[in-house]
């Protein structure tokens, strides 16, 4: 009897602790979401504010004290190069991702599978390339860009950005390749495929999660990049989002705040949505790359 009471008390204690744990979890989750997304929510509110509402020191910044307006979104979309910048970011990013994949899949395969001499050392060396900061390289790279005749053209970024994305991508892909059993491609080769055929028909489909991780990582790195884009390109029509928006909407001391916030929200939300869709695959990629690479 005493034992039963004891068990019952234990169970209730456990349930209480469990409930407390759930509450803590929800509180923390809400806090994290607020801390991360709060600035964006507030940016979204700012976007639709009238000047006379926004620039009044004692107005509540979180509500519309005057009717909301879409003027500033229109300004952003129709009277600045925003759409051009977005388009430039998109096509530069896409090409960079393609170049990255085209170079890093074979390189990673070669280092992970083809018994190259010093393969693991070469893998680490390629990762260290990633550590060479753009701040160190941009001065001489701008000379090289001039020599290539690509100054003031978004194509310069297509040529240069893979220097940032390839090292991480090779490192990630090596990790993914290590999780694919060798037997599978050996079986494919026994079945009459060449090494190359086995790579294309068998390994690449299995590598798909890793490729997705690389695509996401490479694209966000490219879209965020600031120094090269700032240093290489000055004409407006060739600028990308991260340099174009600040230069067009900050004129001397005048900040077009609502339009700036609109730009942030319009860029952030779609990218985060796509990224979120891929998150699970991306997580899988990092585990392999980090732990087994």
């Amino acid at each position, binding site marked *: 009897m005493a034992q039963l009471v004891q068990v019952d008390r234990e169970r209730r204690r456990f349930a209480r602790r469990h409930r407390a744990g759930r509450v803590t979890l929800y509180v923390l989750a809400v806090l994290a979401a607020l801390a991360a*997304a709060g600035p964006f929510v507030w940016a979204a509110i700012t976007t639709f504010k009238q000047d006379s509402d926004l620039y009044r020191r004692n107005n509540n910044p979180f509500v519309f004290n005057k009717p909301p307006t879409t003027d500033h979104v229109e300004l952003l979309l129709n009277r600045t190069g925003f759409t051009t910048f977005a388009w430039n970011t998109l096509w530069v990013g896409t090409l960079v991702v393609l170049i990255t994949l085209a170079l890093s899949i074979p390189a990673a395969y070669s280092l992970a599978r083809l018994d190259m001499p010093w393969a693991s050392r070469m893998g680490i060396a390629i990762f260290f390339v990633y*550590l060479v*900061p753009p701040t160190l390289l941009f001065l001489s790279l701008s000379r090289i860009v001039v020599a290539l005749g690509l100054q003031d053209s978004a194509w310069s970024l297509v040529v240069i950005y893979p220097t940032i994305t390839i090292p991480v991508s090779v490192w990630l892909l090596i990790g993914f390749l290590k999780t694919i059993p060798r037997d599978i491609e050996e079986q494919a080769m026994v079945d009459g495929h060449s090494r190359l055929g086995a790579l294309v028909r068998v390994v690449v489909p299995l590598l798909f999660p890793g490729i997705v991780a690389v695509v996401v990582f490479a694209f966000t790195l490219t879209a965020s990049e*600031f120094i090269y884009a700032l240093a290489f390109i000055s004409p407006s029509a060739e600028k990308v989002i991260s340099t174009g928006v600040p230069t067009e909407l900050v004129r001397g001391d005048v900040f077009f705040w609502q339009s700036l916030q609109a*730009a942030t929200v319009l860029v952030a939300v779609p990218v985060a949505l796509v*990224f979120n869709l891929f998150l699970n695959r991306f997580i899988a990629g990092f585990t392999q790359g980090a732990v087994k690479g």
Partner: protein
Amino acid sequence: MTAPARRRLADRDSTLGWLFLTPTVVYILALVGLPFGLAVAFSLSDVTGGDPSFDWVGLRNFERILADPVFWRSLRNTFVFTAISMLLIVIFGKVLANILLAEFRGRWLVRFLVLLPWTTPVALSTLTWLWLLDSVFSPIDWVLRRLGLIESNLFWLGQPNLAMASVIMVHVWRLVPLAAVIMLAGLLSVPKDVQEQAAVDGAGYWRRMFEITIPLTAPVIAISALFGAIFTFTDMAVVYVLTRGGPTNETQVLASWAFFRGIEGSDIGQGAAIALFLLPLLLAAAIAILRAVRRMEVS
């Protein structure tokens, strides 16, 4: 399979290996190796934006920057910002990873929201912060004023200490999601039965956390610290947009100082010399962390 056929296959493998690797190696040598060499050469020259002719000046650029108090200030700030950010990124990232791991309603939405800071281009999210920390219209100040905690605005970016705190805050805010995703990956790789066994043996949540989960995922935590450090250490966008190094170079870091000197000040030689200080520091940190990771993996 006969012996010669196998050898032919092996031969083809090594040819293929080089064929696959060469484009990447050539590309990296051409666009990282060559400019790196050039950067070293620039740092030993008097190249400027107005006078692009290359004249050897030996270590004069280094002497000049070593005599410049702004350089020392930047060097100190780089370390302070990186160390504090890295610590906070790891702590918050760890907490966030545990939140994202748990099953709860609305997890998808929370994941989407906490990813926003990382997926937004730095320059844009920093602009949002610039407005959040505005000297007159900052909503943070507005709330604090309403609560009666402050009389007048704090002037976030105008006071040295607050400006430094702001730079660190933006770095942490931006990089915590990445660290969390990396650590989440690590957590997912911890075998469930180890956890369950410990729970059955009566180990509470915190005990399991500190005696099992953290030691087992230590390599991944180190990797996320490494990424946090790299991104903070080499970033100039936050400082460039938020404070432009101000007030009076109080928040200047090596990366931004190199940019102001090299591009805006047009003194390419000095800019290169300043930027060159980044590399050995970064390499040392990376090697230390990767070593630690390997040691942890072996044990």
